[in-house]
């Protein structure tokens, strides 16, 4: 039993140390490192859908990480790196889409739905408050007496 456990532990050690030995990147300062981490998390891998380039092992993601690193080391700021990538891979490559005539609906639609709901609510309220006084005005005391008399007579 102990031997088996030892073997298992040995295997676990093997597997944990071998795969994806990430390259160690050198940065001039912490701001650059933060920017690199932020950008690789925000840039989307064009090859594997729904992965950012920090997560992906696709060749193109590796190349984009390398390019991002290179551009940051050259002193490029966040927007310059984003522009560089968007220029080559389109708006698709950034997880924050720009506002244009196609994406405007993403922001506009929830707002319109909310306004629609409020409009419906207000409309129904108005209808209800209109109906109530009418009913009371229509059913005069005499009519009510009649109704009460009818129900009594049924007994």
């Amino acid at each position: 039993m102990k031997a088996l456990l030892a073997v298992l532990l040995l295997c676990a050690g093997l597997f944990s140390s071998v795969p994806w030995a990430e390259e160690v990147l050198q940065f001039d300062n912490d701001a650059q490192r933060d920017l690199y981490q932020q950008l690789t998390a925000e840039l989307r891998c064009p090859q594997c859908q729904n992965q950012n380039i920090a997560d992906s092992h696709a060749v193109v993601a590796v190349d984009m990480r390398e390019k991002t690193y290179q551009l940051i080391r050259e002193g490029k700021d966040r927007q310059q790196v984003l522009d560089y990538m968007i220029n080559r891979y389109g708006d698709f490559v950034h997880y924050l889409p720009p506002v244009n005539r196609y994406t405007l609906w993403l922001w506009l639609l929830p707002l319109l739905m909310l306004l629609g709901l409020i409009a419906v609510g207000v409309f129904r309220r108005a209808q209800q408050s209109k109906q109530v006084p009418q009913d009371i005005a229509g059913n005069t005391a005499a009519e009510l007496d009649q109704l009460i008399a009818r129900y009594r007579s049924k007994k």
Partner: protein
Amino acid sequence: MRKVLFYVPLLAFLALALFLLSGLFSDPRERESASLNKALPNFALADLMQPNTIWTPEKLKGEVFLLNVWGTWCPTCNAELGYLSELRQQGVKIVGLYYELPRDPAFDPPFDLAVLQQEVQQKLQQQGDPYQFNMLDLTRSVSLDLGVSGAPETFIVDADGIVRAHHIGDINPAVWRSKLAPLYQQWSSQ
């Protein structure tokens, strides 16, 4: 008014269902390429077979051609070599951009041009050789500038060196007929 309102949820549901249904048949990889209608990026790449020849966008101008991104490591690229060779026989000029894989210094042997040349030659003998010539993109920097996300990908470049089409995936008779041939003819006739 009441009757109309009664059907609103049903109609809303149908609209949503149709929208989602159309999503089932759409290709999530299909998107407009950022390299369309732009000139080829600046590059100076060595010819794969004759490394002394350096290709630049300027040298490629003058004739419409297909720029095919490929590698011997990529099964889909190998599968399309046969059909691309047919296209070459029909007079389509095809230039290869060889997409070399990155090397892990810990596991892979260092890059050896002679070995790669031999591999490529063997592959082209087996499957057919559609290429006028191949340019070696060793660091994939030109591919990155072109917005290549993997192999195979194919660009139609016009006589002025401007990218007119970007196709992701293999070229087969159906794709050629429906998507690329019309564009190729359009830009050839201009």
